[in-house]
């Protein structure tokens, strides 16, 4: 059955992200919060996270670009990003944030720049994978909606 195959594909994909350390058990918790009454929950959370991450990474760049870095402000932003990463289960992002926080504590600009690069790298990877994941979710949702329409006697929606 096609739906089972789609779901297996999604599960396999998520598992690989877990295996690579990109996601931790918190992401599983988020998936568990999705149900028929909230079929887009995962996609919505991912979207919020990505918007947040982009915004914060931009700010981090801005602060690190200053000749006189405001490490206090920097730390506040990293704290936010670390929190969001933790809430969505983005393990490697979270760890990259910890690195930046340490570098910021040491007021070591060079290390901060390296750490920020790492954050950006992890974010790029993660965002790419999330895009794929959300596409898979959409396909499953479309399939399930189509099934429901068929079962209630309406014309099927072609996917």
């Amino acid at each position, binding site marked *: 059955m096609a739906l089972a195959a789609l779901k297996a594909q999604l599960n396999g994909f998520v598992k690989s992200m877990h295996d690579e350390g990109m996601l931790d058990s918190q992401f599983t918790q988020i998936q568990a919060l999705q149900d028929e009454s909230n079929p887009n929950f995962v996609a919505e959370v991912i979207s*919020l996270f990505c918007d947040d991450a982009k915004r914060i990474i931009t700010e981090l760049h801005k602060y690190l670009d200053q000749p006189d870095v405001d490490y206090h402000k920097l730390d506040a932003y990293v704290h936010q990003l670390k929190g969001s990463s*933790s809430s969505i289960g983005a393990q490697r992002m979270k760890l990259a944030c910890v690195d930046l926080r340490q570098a910021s504590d040491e007021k070591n600009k060079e290390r901060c720049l390296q750490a920020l690069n790492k954050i950006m790298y992890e974010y790029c990877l993660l965002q790419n994978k999330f895009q794929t994941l959300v596409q898979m979710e959409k396909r499953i949702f479309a399939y399930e909606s189509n099934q429901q329409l068929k079962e209630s006697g309406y014309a099927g929606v072609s996917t």
Partner: protein
Amino acid sequence: MGMAAESQFHVLAVDDSLIDRKLIERLLKNSSFQVTTVDSGSKALEFLGLLEDDQSNRNQLSVSPNNNNQVVEVNLIITDYCMPGMTGYDLLKKIKESSSLRDIPVVIMSSENVPSRINRCLDEGAEEFFLKPVRVSDVNKLKPHIMKTKSKDHQKPENEEKQEEEEAAPKTKEVQSPQQQQQQSSNNNKRKTMEEGLSPDRTRPRYNGLTVVSN
């Protein structure tokens, strides 16, 4: 007045992070709570109808109906600790200083496992301290606190109110009113809950050297 059967409990969730607000809202709604989320402590106080007197005398905090002229009933407040401006701890203090709001159970959430912070919040009267990210198992701990408060409301005679105002940190072992005993045993439970919360199924590193002040 008996306990209303299955009427929804209303939780006010306070967090400056949009993602966390979304998560806590879903967690709470999945547990059949009615949920209001706000992004700051001051908005929370506004929602609760708490207006501060200009003299900033904390005993003059009074409750007014909110803008809709409806008295808002909130059965539990769950708040993040780290927020710009008013922290969760500040919010907790203001709530506990208010004669009309102090009986609302307050739960604190934090992404950081700092024992002194945890103790400070519990001492100030927080019912629980959850480490973020908050899980379903945490949310399952909320209803008992609401139920406990509701039954306390029915029992409390008026002359106990003065005693509660003078209540010191609930570690003292003097002659205690039933209220103080209840508060103290619930503090013991809180600390136990906190320690139990450090269970191996959670994958984050936990602080194991927590010093619990025994009563």
